[in-house]
């Protein structure tokens, strides 16, 4: 069974390559680059009773394929920023040290959580409406791999999930005119979830920190792990090949074990993409 992010990302990449190789020659491909800002809020009772939040800059890559009846895509996004406990901005702890000569030193360390969210996802959608209509509905599925890495005194939200979710999408692309619109939702059916054990430690004989962390991977159904995402995107066709788009993405998830974690992410991003 695949348990590490590397294995899941490799499998996702392989799926993308296979999908790419199976594309009809008439397919339309789009490659995009995005930057955005994400508001993250989480309450991880596995580590704390305090909720944490922060604004996390993000960058992403998107590849999308469209044919007459099918649409597929691969998204990769990476963020880096800090979270702080809600209600305790600017909190710090003080360490006093004294050497053998009696010289004292005061070290003040801010209590922030360095936060790195990484996500890779692949989706495949089948058109439900006639391909020549301006408003097109499609449905399919998405596999995604998310890793939230947190560091610091407390490590709220530390979690890896590899999940499968159905996806429904609406695309409005008028034959004439430059504006286009998309919206979609996903709801996770099942996920392989890795979180810290109840005891919050990773040491084990002969092991590394990663072995200790990924040793606590379990398959969760919707009763223990819920996640849904939605997005709306407004786009503008700049030239024959270039498009720009603004996207709002919302995500809410809940994981029950070993203690509840609630996470909410809202991202606003701008994408520049090239169709070939």
């Amino acid at each position: 069974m695949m348990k590490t992010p590397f294995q899941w990302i490799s499998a996702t990449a392989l799926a993308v390559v296979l999908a790419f190789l199976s594309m009809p020659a008439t397919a339309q491909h789009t490659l995009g680059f995005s930057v955005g800002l994400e508001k993250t809020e989480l309450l991880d009772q596995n580590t704390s009773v305090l909720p944490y939040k922060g604004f996390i800059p993000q960058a992403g890559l998107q590849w999308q394929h469209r044919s007459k009846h099918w649409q597929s895509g691969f998204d990769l996004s990476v963020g880096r920023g800090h979270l702080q406990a809600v209600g305790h901005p600017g909190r710090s702890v003080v360490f006093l040290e004294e050497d053998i000569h009696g010289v004292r030193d005061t070290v003040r360390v801010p209590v922030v959580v360095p936060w790195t969210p990484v996500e890779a996802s692949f989706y495949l959608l089948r058109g439900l409406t006639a391909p020549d209509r301006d408003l097109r509905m499609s449905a399919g599925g998405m596999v995604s791999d998310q890793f939230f890495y947190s560091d610091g005194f407390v490590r709220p939200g530390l979690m890896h999930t590899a999940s499968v979710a159905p996806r429904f999408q609406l695309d409005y692309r008028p034959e004439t005119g430059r504006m286009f619109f998309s919206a979609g939702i996903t709801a996770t059916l099942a996920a392989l979830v890795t979180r810290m054990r109840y005891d919050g430690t990773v040491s084990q004989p002969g092991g590394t920190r990663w072995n200790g962390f990924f040793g606590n991977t379990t398959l969760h159904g919707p009763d223990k792990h819920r996640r849904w995402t939605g997005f709306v995107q407004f786009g503008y066709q700049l030239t024959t090949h270039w498009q720009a788009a603004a996207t709002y993405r919302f995500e809410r998830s809940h994981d029950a074990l070993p203690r509840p974690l609630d996470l909410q992410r809202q991202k606003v991003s701008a994408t520049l993409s090239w169709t070939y």
Partner: protein
Amino acid sequence: MKQKFFMLAALLGLASCTAPFYPEDPADKNAVRNFDQIWNDFDAYYGLFEAKHLDWDSLYAVYRPQVQEGTDEEGLYQVVTQMLGHLNDHHITLFPAGTDLPRWSNDLTNGVFIFDEFDLDVVKTYVSNWHEAGDFLQWGTLADNIGYMHISSFPDKIKPVETALEQALNGLKNTRAIVLDIRDCPGGFDPAAQYIAGRFATTRSLYMTVRKRNGPKKTDFGPGVEWYVEPTGSSQFTKPVILLTSRATGSAGETFTWAMNRMETVQQLGDTTSGAFSDNIMRETWNGWMYTISVGDYRAADGKSYEGIGVAPDVFCRNEKAEVLAGKDRVLEMAMTLVP
């Protein structure tokens, strides 16, 4: 143009209209609520009630009435630290973050750890060919072809540990013994300690069994995990080793001492170790204070818990502050005389 403004406004509107899943202002300085949160966290995670024969409920009965809703932070700090003091656990630290109150642990004095029996600069005056093999390990040679190795912590990444040990043991392979100094080692990652001990082992030997809390009831523990010391790396150092410990040797430094003491070639010299073996975790309460909790029940090869006791040396020796300030390390000098 109007259309674009509408779309932008719609995006920003969506971003701001979701309800959070937590109270608008979760910070709460109510002393009773914070006392209860701290007590409950220890109740749900502390792994040593049984090993230390502690009645946590009785401590609640004694200390909870001393806290009122209007008790200020200093008052709460006094009550909580008195209660935690009964656990006699150097792995418990209270960080009253966001206040001017000092960090508290049983082994701190007004927030400061006073350890005036050791100075690495003094050690260096005894050692020639001083080498740094990573920021956690230094080595060199003492008089009479005796090697010296100082470990200041056990890092949580194993690869650098392997590289540093390879370098140090290659450099010391022709010495007739090694003085292994962990007197100022507060701990680190147990698997790194296990690996380093394995560089001195010739056989496989059980050195500790660990159970950790896996549920909110005081009796909720996962299965016992056995830790063995066995040969690791490309070669073993099988000549005599004098292991130097002190009361500042803690946590993974102590599990390392357990592992090393399984070997006939090792003699422990110095002072009894800290007596805080278990892994600990950080938790928080509503007022922003943070505290560490020992989550495991660590037992030596004999099945006994030495939490709050420490590992006693084979030969006791302790430096006086005045000696160290005068440039003398009596423990190190005695170590050289113990080498057969």
